[in-house]
């Protein structure tokens, strides 16, 4: 067991790798240069990882949507179509860059860049694992909301600069939608801030060591609202009014082509990844594994073992080998924090694509009604419910806050229910 120090802990693999590199360099470089290199390594890692994530999110989305629609999805370029993102990238690079006549050329090129920058900036405060955060800001959550709202400027700028009715309408819808959904998004995060007493994302993750907030009454509601508001903010189905193809051609990016168009998509996919990552951070324990001891996971295996008799023999053998391997691995060293974080994030990414494969687009009034008439009051009630949950001891607080949320959700649905229409009578029908 004489592993080099870098490989000693796969939980801290990347952290140790960076430290080893810096120690190696500090033999020749002065201190200030080492600090600079440290920054550059982190920035370089994010700048390299973010586009790679975006590329394979497009692949993942196409594959999952295809499977939901009983198709294969991309499977021609490379094994399982894994080279498809590269082919798409080459295609985008080769396309003509069209600027409409009469458009504001400067704003037209600045807008997609401005939309990608905040999306990548969000990666700076993403806690990928234990000690694996580029900048552990003590106002991390504030930074998150400040930076993510810059994207709406970019979208409006792009729509305005295109000098096209479709772009302009899409941009207006987008701004209205993003501003509306920021309110319940922020308010649902306020409950988390109140309970944890910190704005730092590392602090919030560490506060969830004993329980994930998604499994508390207020946390469940806040999680749903935060995630759905996030989905609405990044303009994804079922909230993709700004780029409703059937009404607006392409929405705010109608007049974009080639690499500029790809930048819009990059921003959208990076932001949807960020939505999933921050939902995991705030409500699903971030980089931590499930807050249960290992033997309870063994209990979960009992139904699997019971039903195994009905499986074919090869499946049983593979399953047994997998369980044995997982047990051995878990016993030797727990699953690394960054794998937990990425797994949970990609599960949420799957949910996001699953939404897209299932739900049709909302109408504009339904979209706005959901934000202002349902999410906003429920988020306010939720802050109160979080207070109750904190103030009273365990069973009372949980039950009281759950009851309060259930009743208020039911009331909100009743109050917002559309007025019943009178049955139509046809005078001349007979």
């Amino acid at each position, binding site marked *: 067991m004489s592993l080099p120090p870098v490989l000693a802990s796969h939980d801290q693999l990347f952290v140790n790798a960076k430290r080893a590199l810096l120690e190696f360099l500090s033999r020749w470089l002065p201190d200030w240069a080492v600090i600079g290199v440290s920054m550059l390594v982190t920035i370089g890692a994010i700048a390299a990882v973010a586009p790679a994530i975006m590329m394979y999110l497009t692949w993942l989305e196409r594959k*999952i949507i295809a*499977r*939901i*629609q*009983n*198709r*294969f999805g991309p*499977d021609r370029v490379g094994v399982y179509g894994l080279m498809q993102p590269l082919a798409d990238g080459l295609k985008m690079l080769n396309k003509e860059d069209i600027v409409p006549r009469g458009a504001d050329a400067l704003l037209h090129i600045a807008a997609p860049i401005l939309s990608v920058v905040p999306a990548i900036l969000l990666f700076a405060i993403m806690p990928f694992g234990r000690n694996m955060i580029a900048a552990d800001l003590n106002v991390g959550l504030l930074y998150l909301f400040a930076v993510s709202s810059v994207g709406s400027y970019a979208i409006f700028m792009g729509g305005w600069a295109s000098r096209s009715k479709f772009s302009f309408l899409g941009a207006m819808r987008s701004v209205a939608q993003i501003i509306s959904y920021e309110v319940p998004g922020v308010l649902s995060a306020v409950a988390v801030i109140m309970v944890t007493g910190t704005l730092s994302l590392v602090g919030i993750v560490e506060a969830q060591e004993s329980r994930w907030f998604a499994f508390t009454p207020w946390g469940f509601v806040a999680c749903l609202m935060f995630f759905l508001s996030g989905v609405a903010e990044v303009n994804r189905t079922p909230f993709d009014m700004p780029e409703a193809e059937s009404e607006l051609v392409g929405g705010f990016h109608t007049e974009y082509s080639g690499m500029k168009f790809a930048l819009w998509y990059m921003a959208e996919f990076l932001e949807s990844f960020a939505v999933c990552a921050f939902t995991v951070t705030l409500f699903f324990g971030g980089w931590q594994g499930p807050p249960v001891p290992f033997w309870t996971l063994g209990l979960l295996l009992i139904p699997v073992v019971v*039903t195994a008799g*009905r*499986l*074919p023999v090869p*499946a049983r053998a593979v399953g047994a080998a997998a369980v044995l391997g997982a047990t051995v691995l878990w016993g030797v060293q727990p699953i690394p924090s960054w794998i937990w974080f990425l797994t949970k994030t990609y599960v949420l990414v799957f949910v996001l694509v*699953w*939404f897209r*494969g*299932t*739900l049709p687009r909302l109408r504009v009034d339904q979209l706005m009604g959901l934000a202002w008439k349902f999410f906003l009051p429920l988020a306010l009630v939720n802050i109160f419910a979080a207070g109750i949950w904190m103030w009273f001891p365990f069973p009372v607080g949980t039950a009281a806050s759950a009851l309060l949320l259930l009743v208020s*959700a*039911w009331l909100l*649905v009743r109050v917002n229910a559309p007025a019943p229409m009178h049955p139509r009578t046809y005078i001349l029908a007979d």
Partner: protein
Amino acid sequence: MSLFIGQGVLKGMLLTLREFIGTYPAGRVLLRMLGRPVGSGLFTVSYPEQKQQHSERFRYFPFLVYDGTPENLRCVSCKICEQECPPQCIHIVGPEKDAQGRPLKKNGRTYPVEFDIDTSICMSCRICVDVCPFDAIEMDNQYELSSTGRFNEMLFDKEKLLKSNEYFQKIKPTEAKTVDQRLAAKKPKAPEAPAAAAQPPQPPSA
């Protein structure tokens, strides 16, 4: 009235999840174990590797039928199909004439010198097959005919169009059977006599 808020959304999402899982073999096993319907499965036919089984009556471009050897083609160059073709894609030169201008006969019938079908114009309407009194032209089911040349490769000449009656029987057994029966009925009374082949075939009375 729904039991809880968002019930319809959850129901729809479970449906799509079932379709998603049902596209994987292991997922189908899982769904069967749970006693759930397995969904529709993958519909896609990966075209160049797999091909769809098309119906016997599927048709594309016409071809000329010959009996036995390519010289023994059924077409007598009567030019009815050329007249009837709506997009006028058939071009026939013939029949072959001797020095006095009388049509030459081979195996007891006249034959075309040239028979061209421009497949870039043909609309696969099958009218040529319907009007042919000799059952000399039939519809093929080959569809992988893409080419780079508009005039050279897509203009099918007589050599390219000629296909045997066995081929016709293979691709369209039912239709070929009725055609063969009709042709046998039209044959002269003494089918086993060797002179029968020298007799010109009678056009159908109908």
